[in-house]
């Protein structure tokens, strides 16, 4: 599904290059649940952003479902975002002016899903995530865990092939964090491919594979049985 070859990323400051990612080659198959780990500044968020097509490498090639992402124009990338990717953020990033219901509904609007169908899908997921009672509240009326729940609901409402999560539990209490991770596990069991970035060793155990980064290099790539 994902094929990275010799991806490099650096920032130029004056004459010096400061390296973020070096020579990253990586394959991820459908159905995997990959955890990217590493110290602060090791480049894990940048790698996730490149995979999520929010950022680009300076060199190297990236194929997503055998399509060359590194050659995409913005329009095609928007298409991929719309149809294949879902994002979950550490800071939830819900749209403050929209209610829970409307936040979850928005990706479907961009997909031009018909009104009736949209209502059914959103109702279904509200039910599944147990947040029907909260649907008319605004994000600032929710707790962090609840907000992240909405964030995940929004990310998967369009049935993406790949779910990307950047420190999804970073702002949450342990208990809420566990709830989110269990949710991820369920999603994975249902066949979703997931890539997450985290600091917490415990969270990595929910997945099937751990990639450790150090100073921009892949230091270790292990499968969990």
């Amino acid at each position, binding site marked *: 599904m994902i094929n990275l070859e010799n991806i490099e990323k650096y920032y130029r400051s004056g004459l010096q290059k400061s390296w973020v990612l070096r020579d990253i080659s990586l394959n991820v198959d459908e159905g995997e649940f990959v955890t990217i780990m590493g110290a602060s500044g090791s480049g894990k968020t940048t790698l996730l952003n490149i995979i999520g097509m929010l950022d680009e490498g300076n060199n190297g090639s990236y194929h997503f479902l055998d399509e060359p992402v590194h050659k995409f124009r913005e329009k095609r990338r928007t298409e991929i975002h719309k149809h294949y990717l*879902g994002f979950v953020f550490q800071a939830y990033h819900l749209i403050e002016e929209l209610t829970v219901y409307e936040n979850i509904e928005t990706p479907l609007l961009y997909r031009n899903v018909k009104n009736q169908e949209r209502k059914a899908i959103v109702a279904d997921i509200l039910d599944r995530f147990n947040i029907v009672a909260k649907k008319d509240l605004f994000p600032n009326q929710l707790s962090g865990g609840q907000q992240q729940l909405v964030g995940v609901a929004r990310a998967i409402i369009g049935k993406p092939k790949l779910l990307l999560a950047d420190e999804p539990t970073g702002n949450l209490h342990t208990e809420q964090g566990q709830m989110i991770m269990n949710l991820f596990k369920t999603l994975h069991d249902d066949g979703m491919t997931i890539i997450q970035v985290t600091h917490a060793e415990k969270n990595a155990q929910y997945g099937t594979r751990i990639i450790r980064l150090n100073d921009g290099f892949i230091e270790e790539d292990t499968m969990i049985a």
Partner: protein
Amino acid sequence: MFRNYTKIAFRNLINQKGYSLINIVGLSISLAVTLLMLLWVQDEWSTDKFHEKSDNIYRMKRTIPLEGNSLDVYNGVPYPVLAAAKTELPEVIQYTPLGRSFEETIQREDLAVRASGTFGNSAYFEIFSYPILTGDVTQLDKKKDAIAISEKLAATLYGTNWKQNAVGQIVHMHDIGDFMVEAIYANFPDNSSIQNEFIYSFEAQLSANDWMLEWTNSGSQGALLLADGADAAKTAQKIEDLFHEHQNKDRKEGILLQKFADHYLYGQFDEQANVTGGRIEYVQTFGIAALLLLIISCINFVNLATARASKRAKEVGVRKTIGASKNSLVTQFLIESGMITFISIGVAIIISKAALPQVNIITGKFLHLNLSEPMMWVGICSIFLLTTLLAGAYPSFVLSRYRPVNVLSGSITRQPGKNILKKGLVVMQFILALLLIVGALVVEKQVQYIKNKNLGIAKENLVMIHQDANITESYDALRNELLKKEGILDVTVVGPSPLNMQSSTSGVRWPGKRPDQENIEFQMVWTASNFLDVFDVPLVSGRYYREGSTYDTTNVVFNERAIEIMGIEDPVGKTVQWWGSPRQIIGVVKDFHNRSLYEKIKPAAFLLDSEDAGWLFVKSADTKVSTALSGLEATFKSVLPNVPLHYEFVDKQYEKFYKSEILTGTLAKYFAVFSIFLSCLGLLGLSTFFAEQKSKEISIRKVLGASTYNLVGFLSKEFLALVGLGLLIGIPISWFILSDWLMTFQYTIDLKVWMFALPAFLAIAIAAMTVGFQTIKAAIANPIMSLRNE
């Protein structure tokens, strides 16, 4: 999707009350001004264009070759040229003489009303689209005592049943006699530059004014209706050829045909007789001023929207990651600005409706804001789209360009380029504001100058009364009675008004007159012997006319300018040829302004003739004007009991020349106030966001020991520098534009430094107060509050 956008737009509107308010207030005001200006411009634009045959109606004008190769264009043409054009040329379908409208007392039995009108023939109603409601207008051509009156005048004279009662009735016109109402026409529309409540038979006019039949007398005006497809220039040439046959001079006068509908807005010609402008320049100036105001408030919108872009950046990032395309984001933000514009237009319509009566008083128009008219909505919708785009396009573009990877990690990189734009817009705003303020000031000063300028002739404490046959008849008795009244100093007759000499002749010859001086026009004014005393005009040499002297009617008095042109040394006692007979120069009068200040002082001849002078002038003592006026009224009642008295103050009459300038001055003042208000509204918004953004920095500085004074300085410095820069750039621009405007006058004020310094100082003071208010608020806030938020 659309619903989702409007929902967000609406919630943002409510959540950001201050922001929305600044935008809506600013946009509403400028949109209201734009709307009102558009109404005015549209009214000016449509003037005289409603005639169905408009494309084929031409006004005949006359060109006079002057010294050098220059041409002068006059509206006056000889009547026979008009008539000959129709009889001789097949492409001329109709002609009509155009009389100058004048006020007249019309009497039906005991009921007397004042109305203005003129003479005409039935072709008048054939050429122009003034519909006849009842009666037979062709009687104007058949009967000398025929008159057509307007619906309004008919209703005043004959009540609501005028349609049955008016036709066939006799009305008495005080100056010209009895007439029979033969036809009633619909009131002339408001956007007709000609307004006549009565049109009496041209035959009557002709029989009382046989000079009109002379080929050499250009005292008439007229319009032609040409055949479809006729070439105006070629037709004019043919008419000119006809005209030339009747001129026995070397430098012959020419004929020019101007579209009747163009005459109103394009009344000025250059020395080659090409149209250079006219009233259209005022229309353009005001149109541009309204557009500038709209731009100022759109700049506010752009600046505020980009200033708070960081608040929206996260939303942009999120939306992009869940599949929003750039286009859909641009659409979303345009809908937001559209919503604000939409509300503002609603408010603007309400403001305009409320302000319209006042605007009509200022502009002297009858503008309507008619919302049931489809064209009105076309206008409103165009303004809506224009404003939405002007205000919304740039912010939407900026916002939709944000990259999620930057905004979501919370590190919006500050791009210096955007700040330059924001600063540039503030600078531009203040350039425009200064331009409008200085403009208002200079126009006002020039108008004051015109009003108060010493013309070399007295215009204060003088009233003028139109001299009709009755007054001429009883002049001596009237004068004797008037002089007995308290407060009345003197009485004289003059015609035309010496402040606006409108009668001229080229029939003056003098020894040494060069061929290229053949067409030099001398203004003529008919006076009584006491002219100089009443108007306080000094004599330079010789003497003025003696009272009761018949011999003096073969003499002539010139002004200095006339003597200068003729180049006669020691003029008193010399002889000139006046209309072919010799006249002796007995005196020279000091120059005074005898036309508007747009023009240089014209050469003028003063003739003795108190019979047909035209205007009775009554001079009163400085402090006893009202006593004098009641004396005047009493005298008229006793000497001329049947003649209603109508007088005008000469100085008020004089101000009417400058109606456009006075209007410009008034409007410029409004524009200036609005522009500075709107610009400061924008500054208020910007400084609020700026202070908010810098709240952390302020707190840290405060903790480090900065005083409130330091902080206010630190926060205001940047804004005031921008305002200052705008003003600095604005000064030369406004100097350039205004000195250009002043060039249209022959006599003007000088542009002084203070005229620019004062508005600049004012602008900076108001801006400092606006910014200061915000920054002081930010500077005295408790630092803990903003630091804890981090």
